[in-house]
């Protein structure tokens, strides 16, 4: 595995996690990092800085949309939500992830 494909895999994984995190309702950037941490039972910690470029990238692909609104502590914050294409993308990525992890499990258990 070259460095390039490794980076792609990591980026793709982060994209999938973000899509999952915003799929349950509009949430701001900090909230996304918290959700991922909670949903993974504290196993996955997103490098918080890398979250924001990823958000712009997903917006560019039309998978998420953003609006400014008021946060829970009544501050101006940018909220992200999933779009219809984003939802389809999440389904597709989840399926391919499941196939991939099943295959890897299969390899690891055969011995």
């Amino acid at each position, binding site marked *: 595995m070259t460095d390039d494909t490794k980076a792609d895999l990591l980026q793709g994984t982060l994209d999938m996690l973000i899509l999952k995190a915003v799929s349950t309702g509009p949430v*701001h*950037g*900090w909230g996304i990092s918290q959700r991922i941490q909670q949903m993974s039972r504290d196993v996955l910690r997103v*490098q*918080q*800085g*890398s979250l*924001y*470029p990823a958000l*712009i*990238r997903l*917006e*560019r692909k039309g998978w998420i*949309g953003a609006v*400014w609104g008021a*946060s829970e*502590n009544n*501050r*101006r*914050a*940018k909220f992200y939500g999933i779009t219809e294409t984003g939802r389809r993308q999440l389904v597709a990525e989840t399926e391919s992830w499941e196939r991939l992890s099943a295959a890897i499990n299969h390899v690891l258990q055969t011995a």
Partner: protein
Amino acid sequence: MFSLQSLFTRGRALAHQGRFEKDLDEELRFHLEMETAANLERGMSPEEARREALLGFGGVEKVKEECRDEDRLRWIETLAQDLRYGARLLRRSPGFTAAAVLTLALGIGANTAVFSVADAVFLRPLPFTEPERLVAVWLNGPDHSVSQASFVELREASRSLADVAAYSAWGFTFTGSGEPEMLKGARVSAGMFRLLGARSVLGRTFLPEDGEPGRGKVALLGNRLWHRRFGADPTILGKTITLNGESYTVIGVLQPGFHFPQRESSDLWLPLTIDPAAEDFKAGYLTLIGRMAPGVAAPQATEEVRAIARRIREREPDEEEEANAPTVVPLQTELADDLRPALLVLLAAVGSVLLIACVNVANLLLARASVRQQEIAVRLALGAGRRRLLRQLLTESVMLSVLGGAAGVLLAGAGVGPLAAGVTAGSPQLNEVALDGRILLFALGISLAAALLFGLVPAHPLALVAEVREAVWGLDADVPISEVAPLEEVVARSMARPRSVTLLLAVFAGIALLLGAIGIYGVMAYSVAHRRHEIGIRLALGARQGQVLRLVLGQGLVLAALGLAVGLPLAAAATRLLESLLFGVAPTDPLTLGGVALLLAVVALLSSYYPARRALEVDPVQALRYE
């Protein structure tokens, strides 16, 4: 066109960037504050909480840089999308696109051509050595010629003028090899070429001896004439040519691109014979130019020239010269001043043409707006942002106007030669008029301005209708300003120009009239076509076709009458203004005004008639059902 396009892109990018940076700052700050607050809740000290938050985030500047990279990509993709979308729209209605591009090309082309002449006249330095030191010397006041005697005395006496030369523009009938031909040129004093910094490429220029009585049978050829009539013959020196029936020996050929006193069309020069014994020694027929000594300014030179003129008049009060206040004027100012009114009038004329072109394109967009409104409503409903939609509409307009601008530059390229010749005919040498980078930038500028002017129309269709209609009528009524009156030949030097300027005005006015008529047709046809529903109801309620037709035509006529009522007084006022600016424009000519008014009224009638006829042909029941 590439650099121009990138300029447009950069402007758009700059506006976008400011907002993006502000938003990014705010978003990241919010994140760090939330993280700090969470850390406080976990029991950290405020300082610790803040430090941990920053640590968990990684370098803020690095994150920002990554965000910027992503944003640039996003921005480029959006622009590409907008351009693709715009291109698809334009391809989908080729008739509309062609009409809009052609209309804009006429408007932008006319402006570009006139601006390029104005640029050469007002903005670029003259193509001579140290042009800032060159002056026109009016020993007998502006536009009055000078005698040989005065010229010789001034040249000897003046200290502030390092050099003075005299010329008299002349036409020569050239006979001999090939067809006889009228050539343009001048008799010039020997020092003129040195004064202007012009060199010969073959042979020599004039020496003082060439101007001595009985010697002046020599000629200098312009580079272009040498190529055109003599095939650039390298052995031309010493050969004789026949001018006005007399033989002259060719002694030299001038460097390429040198023309004086005619603009871009001086063919040849003969020496001015200075002969104190000649009958015309004290007759005024010469024009003087000078080169100021280093460090001297025009006012100083004027003062000295006045003192010299006073001496001459005191000594010879019966000199056959009119005595007006002598003055020394920088050559560029002199030439530019001469052309300023004509160019300003032309700029105003082509500005009007462009405005009418914009109004017409706005009309075309308007006619499509009903279709587009549906599309826009659908896209808004599908969640497209208003800002994005507006940007797409503008992108489409900018594409139209850039296409129009490109076509306009081609038109200008074809038209600028005759235009420059027309405007500056008979005036001394000026810069070559060329479509260079600055002219292209100008064309781009007016293209973008035009795009803004007509581009927002589909966004606000209704508010603009009334305005648009008024604009068309108002401008159109200006058209008769171009009427040309027979011109009396008062001053030989300014003879050719007003006539060609008025001719050019007539051409631009013709374009304006055509565009205006098309525009009026567009507006009227559009508004009548919009009344199909109402016409259907009237017919269904039993109105006869003739009645409905009369009603629609009557209303069209009222509109036309209103437009003319506003436009004609404007036209009369504009003509009076022109009269004061341009020599040879006749006072308001009732026949012309009446003719144009009639033409526009007929256009208005026809443009109500055809759509009304079409509306009447439709079965009323069907017309109602379709609405």
